[in-house]
């Protein structure tokens, strides 16, 4: 029996292929070779195909005349324009509809998302139904619905539906008045900008003084009280004049409104401020409800509408009265009215002083079409509307998740410190929720921008439609056009993620 030698003098020779490093290199070389071969094959095929179709390639076509029409462009466009101009038109049209969509979807989405969390059963249910309905139906289908079933079934041009403020809606879209300011009006704009800057400066200063000294600067306490009264007077006067002029027509309604409004405004300076505030609220909400309910329930007799509006307005006024009485306004209040008065009042003064005028070019129905005014094509309206409605449902979910992500203990801690609801939301809840909301919100914005390419299906001349559809069929340079489109979208995406990374880095909570 021989003894098998178990040990070896030299280290075991590793199989060449079992060395993980070498194996990795082999894998990578194989993959790269396969990819290169595939690319080579595709390029060869493409070249052969293009040669067979007698097509040329290259990006020189960008400087050639496009020779097609684009129905909607923010810049001058004619058949004589170049392809690169078509690209710019496509990009600006995409950005325009994306911008409008983002603004409105954000407003709607935040409203619905907060409503979804309301303790009020009806409001929460309504928001839930909205979200669950909208986000489970394809966007393209929604666009078709708005475009083909709603906007395209509008009456013909000759039977246009007149909307308030000289706007019209028909098969060809919405016509609204176009503002035509004169030369002097430039001063009003300058004044507006100046007033805005001044107002922001005053607001910032007041807030800084408030944190430093614990109270708002004495210099603005009195002006802001006066401004409060003036704003109260103006709002009450406007509401009353509308109320007495339109709803319950009485003679000399201007004088009566002015007297009542003045009484209310003076009252707001005394200890009857809560009553004054309740009264103003009553006037305003009466007017608003009357208009709104009159629009919603046109078939109901106007007396009933007025009665219901009055009752509703009374309830709202009672709420405001009770809240004000509970927490009387004091000097420790941000001088909002003063700032509003500056922003509105200064330009108004300049408007009056310089004798400027802001005329509106009203769209007028001529024999076959509208002339003048601003014409919004139905493709644009359907796309902007559809994107807003659709994206809002996703933003709402994002907002809801963000608010729910803030620990319940944060609310309790803030409450137990005595912070009021407004301060609690502003200082504790919102800053934390926004950290959770912003990243997914940004990707919703990016999604909206990408989804705007569906405008191609309803004929809105956005990037894909102009440069992927028309330009390809006119120039035959499919590869070049698609490459450019992809690069543009890639750029949007990279910019978005750059912003997102910057934001995330900035607001990340510091941990150990």
């Amino acid at each position, binding site marked *: 029996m021989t003894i098998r030698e178990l040990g070896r003098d030299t280290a075991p020779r590793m199989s060449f292929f079992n060395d993980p490093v070498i194996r990795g290199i082999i894998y*990578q070389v194989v993959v790269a070779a396969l990819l290169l071969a595939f690319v080579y094959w595709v390029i060869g*095929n493409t070249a052969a195909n293009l040669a067979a179709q007698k097509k040329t390639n290259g990006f020189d076509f960008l400087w050639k005349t496009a020779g097609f029409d684009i129905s909607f462009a923010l810049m001058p466009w004619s058949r004589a324009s170049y392809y690169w101009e078509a690209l710019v038109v496509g990009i600006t049209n995409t950005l325009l509809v994306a911008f409008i969509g983002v603004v409105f979807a954000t407003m709607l989405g935040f409203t619905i998302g907060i409503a979804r969390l309301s303790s*009020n059963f*009806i409001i929460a249910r309504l928001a839930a139904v909205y979200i669950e309905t909208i986000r489970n139906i394809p966007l393209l289908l929604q666009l078709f619905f708005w475009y083909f079933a709603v906007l395209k*079934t509008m009456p013909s041009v000759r039977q246009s539906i007149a909307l308030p403020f000289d706007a019209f809606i028909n098969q060809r879209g919405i016509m609204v008045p176009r503002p035509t300011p004169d030369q002097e009006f430039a001063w009003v704009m300058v004044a507006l900008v100046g007033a805005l800057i001044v107002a922001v400066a005053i607001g910032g200063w007041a807030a800084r003084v408030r944190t430093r000294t614990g109270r708002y600067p004495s210099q603005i306490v009195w002006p802001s009280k006066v401004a409060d009264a003036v704003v109260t007077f103006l709002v009450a006067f406007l509401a009353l004049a509308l109320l007495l002029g339109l709803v319950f027509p009485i003679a000399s309604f201007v004088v009566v409104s002015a007297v009542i409004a003045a009484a209310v405004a003076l009252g707001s300076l005394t200890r009857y401020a809560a009553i004054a505030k309740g009264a103003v609220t009553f006037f305003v909400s009466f007017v608003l409800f009357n208009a709104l309910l009159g629009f919603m329930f046109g078939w109901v007799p106007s007396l009933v509408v007025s009665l219901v509006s009055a009752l509703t307005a009374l309830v709202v006024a*009672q709420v405001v009265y009770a809240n004000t009485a509970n927490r009387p306004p004091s000097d420790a209040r941000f001088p909002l009215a003063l700032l509003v008065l500056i922003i509105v009042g200064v330009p108004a003064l300049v408007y009056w002083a310089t004798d400027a005028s802001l005329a509106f070019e009203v769209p007028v129905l001529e024999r076959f079409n509208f002339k003048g005014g601003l014409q919004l094509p139905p493709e644009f309206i359907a796309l902007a509307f559809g994107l807003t409605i659709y994206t809002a449902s996703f933003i709402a979910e994002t907002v809801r998740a963000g608010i729910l992500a803030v620990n319940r203990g944060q609310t309790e801690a803030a409450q137990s410190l005595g912070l009021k609801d407004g301060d609690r939301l502003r200082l504790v809840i919102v800053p934390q929720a926004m950290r959770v909301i912003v990243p997914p919100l940004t990707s919703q914005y990016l999604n909206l921008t990408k989804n705007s390419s*569906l405008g191609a299906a309803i004929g809105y001349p956005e990037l*894909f439609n102009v440069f992927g559809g028309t330009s390809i069929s006119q120039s035959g340079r499919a590869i070049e056009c698609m490459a450019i489109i*992809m690069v543009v*979208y890639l750029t949007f995406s990279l910019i978005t993620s750059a912003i997102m990374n910057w934001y995330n880095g900035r607001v990340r909570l510091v941990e150990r």
Partner: protein
Amino acid sequence: MTNIAYVRSDFSEARAAPRSTTGVGAWLHKNLFATSTDAVLTLLGALFLLWVLPPLVNFLFIHAVGINGTVEECRLETSGACWAYVWSEMEFFIYGFYDIPEVWRPNIVFALGALLLVPLLIPRVPFKRANALLLLIAFPVISYYLLAGGAFGLKPMPTEKWGGLLVTLIISAVGIIVSFPLGIILALGRQSKMPVIKVLCIAFIELIRAVPLITILFMASIMLPLFMPQGTTVDKLLRALVGVTLFSAAYVAEIVRGGLQAIPRGQYEAAASLGLSYWKQMYFIILPQALKHVIPGIVNNAIALFKDTSLVYIVGMKDLLEAVKTKNDTALEWQSANTPTTGYIFAAMVFWSFCFSMSRYSMYMERRLNTGYKR
């Protein structure tokens, strides 16, 4: 100091909450009128419902023309939705131009699919593995031969004739199923230590995710023939399938990556220390855990993909939305003011029921998995 000792002599039994905190009145107060602001909101909400609901109910039900109605009724000024139109075009909406005498074939496919899918979705039903194999391997083969024909004495049925809901379901099912393994491979590639593979996977995933689906579909359906050797023709449906699948794979890859990152490092180390090869580590240890985490994400992706299949309309495929739009535009015998609206509402209801059930299922699974996690 006074004596503060106290001992309870009688044990206070629990009693029912006062009327003011339970019952209908309390519910109403708590949920509708808790504060005066709430009361105003309730009022506004009620007014809104009063505004929206009656016309909606009138349009959909009370003034609607039922499935046995005629086009003349639909054309009346006072009529609502025209369900008769939807009913009479139903076959086109479901099968497209599929020969009517042959529709038993897609019907068998639908039935078989449901029969195999439902038990797979109910956690209690056993034989999951056999079931899944049947659904993923046998079912597609059988379905292909049943639908396309040309073998076993079945009449050939070119894909150009397929349409409607059939095509929508085929594209989304294939997209969802095939993109899953592709997405896993891409996700693993993105985590790989080999730079070439890692870079390739990242480039593919990020490029696809940056561009809209219709550019991908456009590439796949219009430009694919350019990339092929001359004279090759690729079936149109297949092109759309390739586009949708690649698109979805990139998104699945990102979802799976999230799951892979959620796995503690220790699991990777433990798997490696057992001496398992890379693929065995992934198959036996890492992926089963990662995939459990990402089921909700995968289902959400499936919902998005199901909705996105409607985009194949833009590259000329005939899915449910295309079928409805075609009939809306061309069915002159059903032309009326409410015909297009009714058609789109019908399509919306179909899409909605699929997506809504998927999202509810995902929530159900999420709850199940969560409870499993807590214990």
